[in-house]
């Protein structure tokens, strides 16, 4: 509670107490009116001042002005009729209670959500001559050695210089799966060091470190407004003037026709109380904010309220195979020599050399299988041919490493392989030497995640891959995916995705690892990058970032978005519904001031409480 909230609470309590006392003592006449004015002014003086300010600036539909007219009108009517001023004061009192609650609840949820997301460490330990010193991580320069004790958060991204330990990444990924690290490993801030003491050389500024960037993204996210928010803002702009005009008409027209003007003015005042739009306006951004906060706790970063909204409407999910459904760390499965001049060892040796500079996962696996790749052989004129393979001159011989198409092009008579996997053919000076079989394992939860997606209302699932038909068919069958497209070049993926996009009337999401598929990610209605922890490029290209590479997060993200949008819809219908109901009942004389107060304050409180539910992410 801040100072302003405390002061307002005190005003509300004093006014309420005075009102009760006044009802217990017997007074009448002018004294009574003057005494009743005291609690009214205590609780409402700021509204009166604001109303005056509104008149000065010609703002006819200012909320405070409307509230002032409604309460002063009720006051006047009460004195004219029976002298019971309770209702007028109660309207002001409850209005202020509502305002106070709104301010308190918003402040509280703002704090809760920020705390939930606050994965940012507070200090860094820097070694000085006098031992360890705790400093503000903002002041640590790149390249500084910092010490992280067991139980502490890693304050800044860096590389481990000394020590081994296990890290808990729960704050970033939502999963408490421990990660083993040792000297030479890259570590990101926000992770908790579980056991060993670590010496880390920082590689980034604090502000550029992972946790800081994540927080910045999430805070930024609620600035990208969703359609629901725009709708409600527009609605509020029309709603208040419309209700006020109706109130005016209600006060004048029936009075002229039927007479009995006190009744009609009273009903018009009810309209003014209901005309405040805050209940509608507050709950929608709050729901989105809570939804985005809850998602980020589960290791899902949603970069905007608009993306959360689109995600909830997704009926088609297109997935890249490698890195999304499969592990993406290829391993050499078999080596088949088909030429007596090149034994298996030699074959692998040449292939690894050609792939020396490539960052493709296949290249990594070849290099991994031949650990001492950097020997004294000369590797020159390396040329990468997209969708074919790589060619290089090794010790003067032209070695081509790639797929069947590539072999056909260099004129090598390649032989097919019985094994299922990625077959990497090798030709030397245009003569076929043999092939290396590389395979990629399906992720443990991939099958479950496909089933989960279908259960959460995704109608179509596609798999896209650059791999051969044989591998694609095998993986798709194993995962229960009916639609897949294989043997796609990077450019084909975009055009294939566009075909799916134009064939679908609903929203389409694309899931990829964010490294090679940035063009498709940006083409999709919602681009989801997976396992992108610390990859700036992927975070840049995607709309939703899954912090680890568990495919179950895809359906989780969809579920969170559906729940959040469900709450948004409930709030819109509930708030508008109750308000309209009270307007109608008020017009025909079935609702009194108290119902109007409920329509204004009660609805707001309920909508805010409902919005907070979005913070809790649904169970798997």
């Amino acid at each position, binding site marked *: 509670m801040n100072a302003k909230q405390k002061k307002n609470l005190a005003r509300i309590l004093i006014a309420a107490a005075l009102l009760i006392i006044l009802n217990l003592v017997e007074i009448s006449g002018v004294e009574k009116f003057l005494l009743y004015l005291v609690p009214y002014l205590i609780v409402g003086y700021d509204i009166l001042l*604001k109303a005056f*300010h509104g008149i000065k600036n010609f*703002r006819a539909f200012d909320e405070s002005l409307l509230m002032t007219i409604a309460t002063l009108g009720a006051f006047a009517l009460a004195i004219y009729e029976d002298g019971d001023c309770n209702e007028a004061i109660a309207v002001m009192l409850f209005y202020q209670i509502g305002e106070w609650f709104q301010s308190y609840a918003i402040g509280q949820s*703002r704090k809760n959500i920020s705390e939930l997301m606050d994965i940012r460490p507070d200090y860094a330990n820097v070694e000085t001559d006098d031992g360890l010193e705790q400093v503000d991580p903002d002041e640590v320069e790149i390249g500084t050695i910092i010490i992280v004790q067991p139980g502490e958060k890693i304050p800044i991204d860096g590389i481990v210089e000394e020590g081994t330990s296990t890290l808990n990444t729960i704050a970033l990924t939502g999963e408490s799966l421990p990660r083993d690290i040792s000297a030479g490993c890259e570590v990101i801030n926000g992770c908790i060091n579980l056991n060993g003491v670590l010496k880390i050389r920082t590689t980034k500024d604090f502000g550029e470190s992972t946790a800081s960037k994540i927080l910045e993204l999430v805070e930024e996210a609620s600035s990208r407004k969703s359609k629901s928010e725009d709708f409600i803002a527009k609605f*509020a702009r029309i709603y208040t003037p419309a209700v006020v005009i109706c109130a005016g008409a209600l006060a004048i027209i029936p009075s002229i026709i039927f007479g009995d003007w006190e009744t009609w003015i009273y009903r018009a005042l009810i309209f003014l109380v209901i005309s405040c739009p*805050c209940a509608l*306006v*507050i709950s929608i951004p709050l729901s989105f*904010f809570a939804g985005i906060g809850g998602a980020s706790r589960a290791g899902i970063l949603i970069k905007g309220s608009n993306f959360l909204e689109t995600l909830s409407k997704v009926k088609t999910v297109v997935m890249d195979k490698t890195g999304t459904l499969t592990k993406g760390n290829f391993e050499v499965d078999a080596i088949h020599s088909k030429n007596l001049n090149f034994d298996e060892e030699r074959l692998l040796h040449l292939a690894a050399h050609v792939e020396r500079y490539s960052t493709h996962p296949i290249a990594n696996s070849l290099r991994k299988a031949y650990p001492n790749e950097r020997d004294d052989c000369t590797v020159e004129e390396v040329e990468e041919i997209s969708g074919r393979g790589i060619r290089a001159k090794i010790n003067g011989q032209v070695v081509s490493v790639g797929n069947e198409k590539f072999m056909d092009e260099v004129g090598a008579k390649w032989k097919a392989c019985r094994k299922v996997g990625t077959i990497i053919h090798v030709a030397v000076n245009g003569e076929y030497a043999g092939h290396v079989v590389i395979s990629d394992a399906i992720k443990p939860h991939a099958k479950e995640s496909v089933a989960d997606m279908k259960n959460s209302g995704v109608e179509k699932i596609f798999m896209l891959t650059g791999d051969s038909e044989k591998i694609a068919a095998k993986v798709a069958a194993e995962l229960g995916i009916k639609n897949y497209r294989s043997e796609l070049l990077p450019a084909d993926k975009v055009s294939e995705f566009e075909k799916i996009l134009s064939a679908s009337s609903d929203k389409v999401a694309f899931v990829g690892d964010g490294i090679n598929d940035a063009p498709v990610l940006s083409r999709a209605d919602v681009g989801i990058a997976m396992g992108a922890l610390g990859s700036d490029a992927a975070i840049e290209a995607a709309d939703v970032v899954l912090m680890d590479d568990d495919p179950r997060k895809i359906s989780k993200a969809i579920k969170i978005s559906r729940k959040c949008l469900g709450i948004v819809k409930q709030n819109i219908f509930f708030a508008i519904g109750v308000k309209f109901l009270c307007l109608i009942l008020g017009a025909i004389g079935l609702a009194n001031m108290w119902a109007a107060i409920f329509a204004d304050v009660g609805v707001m409180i309920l909508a805010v409480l409902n919005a907070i539910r979005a913070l809790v992410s649904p169970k798997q």
Partner: protein
Amino acid sequence: MKKTYKIDVDCANCANLMETETKKTAGVKDAVVNFMTLKMKVEFEDGVDAKEVMERVRENCKRVEKDCEIYF
């Protein structure tokens, strides 16, 4: 040129009103008010003095919502 400012305002609708007023202010290309994080992001037109524009923005916002504040 884009800049983010911290703001203080009590109700969500007032934040919407502030956004509308800021957008209307001369020198402002676009503006987003984020009630949840109490921040205002302003995109200025080329060649204007941000501080001068923000003075006008504050004045306009104060007219629709007396209690608001923009820190710059």
